[in-house]
């Protein structure tokens, strides 16, 4: 059991979030991913206008991602110690930004279809 396997990672994540929350998040991410694919297939393209508007939400997502990690780990910007810390911070921001952009795009696409 010295190797890092997928089942090890899953078990660690289950312990980290709690089993229900972890699998809940996995299901939520899967649904969001499918919805994203669904609206692209439905519209037969990525709507440029919507994407630009969705990207306006990216900084919000980045900020929420960073704020969330700082909150759950009782830390803040003053604790950033070395280059690796900056890299981790950027990765968290990117994850938040991408997630929020996709979410904003889906919300616009679904609500615009309701109007039409």
């Amino acid at each position: 059991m010295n190797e890092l396997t997928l089942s090890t990672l899953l078990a660690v994540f289950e312990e980290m979030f709690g089993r229900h929350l972890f699998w809940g998040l996995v299901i939520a991410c899967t649904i969001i991913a499918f919805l994203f694919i669904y609206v692209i297939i439905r519209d037969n393209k990525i709507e440029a206008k919507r994407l630009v508007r969705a990207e306006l939400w990216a900084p919000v997502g980045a900020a929420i991602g960073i704020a969330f990690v700082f909150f759950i780990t009782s830390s803040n910007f003053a604790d950033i110690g070395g280059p690796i810390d900056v890299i981790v911070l950027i990765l968290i921001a990117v994850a938040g930004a991408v997630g929020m952009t996709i979410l904003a795009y889906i919300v616009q696409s679904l609500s615009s279809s309701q109007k039409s």
Partner: protein
Amino acid sequence: MEYDFINVIPPMRAPDVIRNSPLPWADKWTDQGWVEADKHSLRHPRYPDVFSVGDIAGVPKGKTAASVKWQVPVAMAHLIADIEGKQSNESYNGYTSCPLITRVGRAMLVEFDYKNNLTPSFPGVIAPLEELWISWLMKEVALKATYNAMLRGKA
């Protein structure tokens, strides 16, 4: 008195059930009663079918959950080899881990072996001798989760 760092360790010893048994060392840690063990195979020299892992093991390093992670596979390999009538070369190198919290928000993830060689789990990524936020993140969210997963036999 001025100081930069204080580390207070309360007295520690094995539970009565071990201390009052024939298992502890006769000439080492006699006030604490840890189980006599070969420091590499973790096998008891006088009772070859007894292995010790975890805090109870009378080896010069260890006493962390992180050590247990590397001790268990060694003891397991020797047990299985015994059952199969073979010999195992698996050896515990004294690996232990000290997540030193230097303040709320920063820590040092210091890992080392019997010879005090640094044995970083993430070489080139997490510098063991620097106070880093990533080390604090590891300590805050990843380590306990890993040790809990270990108790389920999954890590």
